[in-house]
């Protein structure tokens, strides 16, 4: 077993995990953060995407011990400290960018990173940016709208 220390959503968390514990399982089971979803366990669907030092990463393809000392943001950490939804969260809720919502945390994390790097993406850049995440309900049309809407909301921020 290994002692690891992670900063998750701004809070320092410690866990004792076996070497092969996946980061997704560590977040969900050891730390009780079940907002990170597991859809395929092999890095295809993107439901488990989290931000590792700000970069989107598949937590189901990451061993928890390999991110000891790093900073992690999960879907639970996207809202502001006062609970105010982030622009990306607001946009997905507003634009009906979700149905069952199982894929949503992964899309939110991916889109958050995308818009941080590129606050005004073109249509192609949005499509490419979120092409690694699967959604089975929406046919993606409203997800694309949500990402563009999030870019607008970010631009409107003071």
């Amino acid at each position, binding site marked *: 077993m290994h002692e690891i220390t992670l900063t998750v959503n701004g809070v320092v968390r410690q866990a004792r995990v076996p070497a092969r514990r996946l980061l997704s399982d560590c977040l*969900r089971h050891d730390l*009780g*953060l*079940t*907002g*990170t*979803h*597991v*859809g*395929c*366990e*092999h890095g*295809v*669907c993107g*439901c488990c995407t989290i931000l590792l030092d700000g970069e989107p990463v598949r937590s189901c393809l990451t061993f928890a011990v390999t991110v000891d000392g790093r900073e992690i943001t*999960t*879907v*639970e950490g*996207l*809202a502001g400290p006062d609970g105010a*939804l982030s622009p990306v*969260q*607001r946009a*997905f*809720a*507003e*634009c*009906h960018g*979700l*149905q*069952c*919502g*199982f*894929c*949503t*945390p992964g899309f*939110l994390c991916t889109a958050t990173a995308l818009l941080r790097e590129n606050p005004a993406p073109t249509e*192609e850049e949005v*499509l*490419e940016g*979120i*092409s*690694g*995440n*699967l*959604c*089975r*309900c*929406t*046919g*993606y*049309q*409203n*997800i*694309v709208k949500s990402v563009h809407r999030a870019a607008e909301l970010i631009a409107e921020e003071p």
Partner: protein
Amino acid sequence: MTSTDTRTSQGIGQSAPRPDGTLKVTGEFAYSSDLWLEDMVWGVTLRSPHPAARIRSIDLGPALAMPGVLAVLTHEDVPGEKHHGLELRDQPVLAVDRVRYQGEPVALVAADHPERARRAAAAIVVDYEVTEAVTDARRAAFDPACPKVGERGNILRHQPVRVGSVFEAPVVVTGEYEVGMQDQAFLGPESGLAVPAEDGGVDLYVATQWLHVDRDQIAPCLGLPAEKVRVSLAGVGGAFGAREDLSMQVHACLLALRTGRPVKMVYNREESFFGHVHRHPAWMRYEHGATRDGRLIYVKAEILLDGGAYCSSSPAVVGNAASLGAGPYEVGNVEIDAYGVYTNNPPCGAMRGFGAVQACFAYESQMDRLAEACGLSPVELRIRNAVSQGSRLITGQLIDSPAPLAGMLAELEAFPLPAASDGDLRELPGGVAQTTHGEGVRRGVGYGVGIKNICFSEGFDDYSTARVRLELAGGEPHVLVHTAAAEVGQGLVTVQAQVARTELGVERVTVAPADTTVGSAGSSSASRQSYVTGGAVKTACEAVRERLAELAAAHPGLTTTALLQRFGPVEETREYRHRPTFPMDPSTGQGDSHTQLALCVHRAVVDVDVELGLVKVVELAAVQDVGKVLNLLALEGQIHGGSAQGLGLALMEEVLVADGRLRNPSFTDYLIPTILDMPPMKVSILENPDPAAPYGLRGAGEPPTLSTTPAVVAAVRAATGRALSRVPIRPEHIALT
């Protein structure tokens, strides 16, 4: 308050936001896989590696000896009924003395950690005597020498349709078509939590489509009365039909009752492919006869559907394929035979549009062939034969509400076509792989038309129940709506609240969590919940309104708030049924078997790299008549999502089965469309009300899945000149035939 004229800001017709939307974007929404109790243990399933075998013996000793193991169960530990099933209770809870498909549950383990439970399951020794697997549906159906898969004959339903006697025509086209096995591929795998209760019963929290039909199968298997099995809906990560049959429900309850501990079961993606039914693969032979100017004289068809090892909903699938087997076209002479067959392949059952999807691919392919043979455009040929209000289905059923198919096709055809590729190589087939610079790329346009029955058919007592309570909360009126209807992502929670706002004129509405403490809502399937549960909520609200009106009449001058203050909450529970339907005649198929029919038409535009066989769908356009728009944003989402699944069936989605074994139970090998596969959509929505339905609505979830597939395939045919009689189309069907 006393009339439906009251306008609220988020009532019927408004794009009200999802009440669960905020929880779903903050990560707080609890899916069935997220449930957690401090003292819970984990259940896993041992499954058969063989598609057909006798079980000589099962040695549980090695598993029981492993640390952390609390229980290991086989069929001998099932205290009640040993079988369950939606239409026929033929599926064992745990295999009894033989297994009939690869992945059939054989034993269960509960342990204090999921890994320990998995290792213990692997340690169980099952002695199998492998037997001949029946994997060819045609042989299973028609070869008298073929072994029987189950206790009954291999044909689980044969439904003929017979109309007229003229089977000669100046123009005849024939075709054989095949539809591969599609998976629903919801993203949240099967999971749930069973908690043993003090009364000897069990509380189950599970992602499902129909709480009551689950309970009514679980309780007999546990040997418990229904009231001791309480089922609550946990967060559902998509369904699409795959959660109609039981998966882990009985298993988790058995383990919970045996161990006295809460038991959680969560399938992984691979197990999910074995843990639910798939869309029936189909083999179809069609013959269409028409006049030289393209008017249908007759349709003959044989539709063979592989139901796999157990019955599931196959009889209803066969009924849909037969009754809708000629499509939404007027034809006076019909000879259709639809068969559902048992094999040792994976069980097949419900998936969005079932039965109708398979037939639609075939009859639409035939309509294109007929158009070509008659020298007509595909749209013109369809318009010449289109049903309308007053037409009869091939079952003799009168279409008694609007069915403006010809107008829908004309509108669709008039949509401007997308521009040619602008030279961006990423836009071409092959995408960012840049496998072409445009050489070998051809554009094609194709059309597809689909007709789907809405709600349950063929005499099923199809109803929903709603309890509506008008009360004061914080001194202001508030409505609590309680149904057992499963929100699976489609937005039913939103619609229920919208109905209550419109009917009671109260802004603040809460939809209570779905569970079995209220009457059945029926299944979240067959595009039926807006109709039936929407109808139930509307009816219960009307009853509340009447009660309130009586109080108001008896106490003039009192406001609603004052009435509620003085007399307390007003609560009413109502059941709602749609018009009765009737069985199809077993030898002629005649009968008013459906209560409502819905039409959708699609146009697909594709670019195909004919050298590499790669397809890029450039645009999908759709026209759908929904009777009445309840929530435009949610409705569009259903049409987009349904179209994506139809596109998937056309181009990429297939569960590959060889000798009864799944070859691709993972998302690396079973492909579903990504955002780069799904083109922009144009959608036009018509509102021609059905007077029999609440608000005139028409179920909307399934029809787009039907018409997308033939439209995409027709477009690829137009681009390539290939016959393409099977879906999904593979690159070699384009480039190597």
